[in-house]
């Protein structure tokens, strides 16, 4: 069971995790990403490529499902303007085994950072704006799954 959601509205991470855990696989791992404040940051503006986003997320979910034999995958990613503290993303996987659940969840997050068409712009409290640049550590993390 693959569930993909791309939307501006907030989501209930607890309810989504509970729903997936109701599949009863035995092991449910999840990751929630939020807009982390650094004192200067006011909000993030999340742009995406509408025609491609869901397709790309589904591909990531299917790859995880294939590699770890999952019972279910939920990926939710928000777009638009998100203030400090707001939720950006949820990845949740359900499997028979804890390592499969945790690894596949980690894999999905690493893939989201490198092959899902989202772009983050930082909006500072002083009004200045700048596009977030890709980080070498994210590229390395995503590549590590091919080893």
């Amino acid at each position, binding site marked *: 069971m693959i569930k993909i959601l791309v939307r501006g509205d907030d989501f209930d991470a607890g309810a989504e995790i509970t729903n997936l855990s109701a599949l009863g696989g035995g092991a449910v791992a999840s990751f929630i990403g939020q807009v982390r404040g650094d004192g200067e940051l006011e909000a993030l503006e*999340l742009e995406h490529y509408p*025609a491609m986003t869901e397709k*790309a997320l589904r591909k990531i979910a299917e790859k995880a499902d294939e590699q770890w034999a999952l019972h279910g995958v939920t990926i939710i990613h928000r777009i638009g303007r998100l203030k400090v503290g707001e939720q950006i993303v949820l990845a949740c996987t359900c499997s028979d085994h804890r390592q499969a659940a945790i690894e596949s969840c980690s894999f999905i997050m690493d893939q989201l950072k490198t092959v899902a068409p*989202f*772009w983050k712009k930082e909006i500072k409290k002083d009004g200045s704006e700048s*596009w977030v640049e890709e980080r070498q550590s994210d590229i390395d993390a995503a590549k590590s799954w091919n080893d």
Partner: protein
Amino acid sequence: MTCQINIVYFSWVKERLGRDQELIVYPAGVETIDDLVGHLKGTDSIYQHVFSDLKKLRFALDQDFVGLEAPLGNSEELAIFPPVTGG
């Protein structure tokens, strides 16, 4: 023979070009993304400016990531954007 393709732009590529998409008609001999970008750079200096460092750009053909050398084939949509930063 001429061909055409819709190009969509995102993030700072969109901002610097001042447009989010455009239909581009290109001549025979343009086979790959690399060829098309080269063609565009010959038509307007703004492309020379925005596409000056191709290592900073990523491409998708009909919503699949591809490299610069990918043939355009019968693709309907080319997307040009910086590396993604979601998650």
